[in-house]
């Protein structure tokens, strides 16, 4: 049962279409101990409802590596929800 004391902060980055929909490019946010990337995205999709529909076409990254959505967050992580890439 997470207490306030067990909360910690992560940095969240937004790019491309996700950045435009959220209207922010980065922020530091507090998360509860045990939270996963999916939990964090859920919070953003409540705050920015247009994001919810994009979930199936996004991949998550943690500290610059693609990771599964059920990856637990760790204090100091840098997280991003990445749209399909279109470089080249």
């Amino acid at each position, binding site marked *: 049962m997470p207490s306030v004391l067990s909360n910690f902060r992560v940095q969240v980055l937004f790019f491309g279409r996700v950045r435009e929909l959220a209207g922010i490019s980065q922020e530091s946010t507090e998360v509860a101990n045990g939270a996963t990337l999916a939990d964090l995205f859920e919070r953003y999709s409540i705050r920015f409802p247009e994001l919810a529909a994009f979930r199936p076409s996004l991949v998550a*990254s943690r500290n*610059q590596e*693609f990771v*599964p959505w059920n990856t*637990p967050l760790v204090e100091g992580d840098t997280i*991003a929800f990445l749209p399909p890439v279109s470089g080249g």
Partner: protein
Amino acid sequence: MSNTITERDVFALLNAPIDIAATVSEVRTERDGAIVTFDGFVRHESHGRQTLYLEYEAYESMALAKMKEIGGLIHERFAVDKVAILHRLGRLEIGETSVFIAISAPHRAAAFEACRFAIDTLKRTVPIWKKEYFADGAVWADGELPPAPPSAPQGAS
């Protein structure tokens, strides 16, 4: 902007035009007998609509890390000498080079295969995004979803 030049390879994200001749010179050594390059540049149309210009943005630190990973894979898999992978960011006009790859090798077959691998892998795994501007609006290009990693075991930390 972000760039890395190792003794062997060159990886860069640039806000200024890519110097193609200088990049080719960078990978050309007396150990080699062939260089294969890929020059990707801005097309004047997309899905039948006339393009005005493009804007590229990147998760720069991760993009550079992924470009270096591609370089590492190339050296593992192909008998090549030097690898250069450069990508432009920001606004690009029609005809401007957005991505340039140059790979040198003692023999041509490895250089051809490695160059194809480099651009195909870049387009699937490097976090760079392109927005296409048309006379009547702008859209984010349909991209490719990087391969999703398998789910982490539940309860793993």
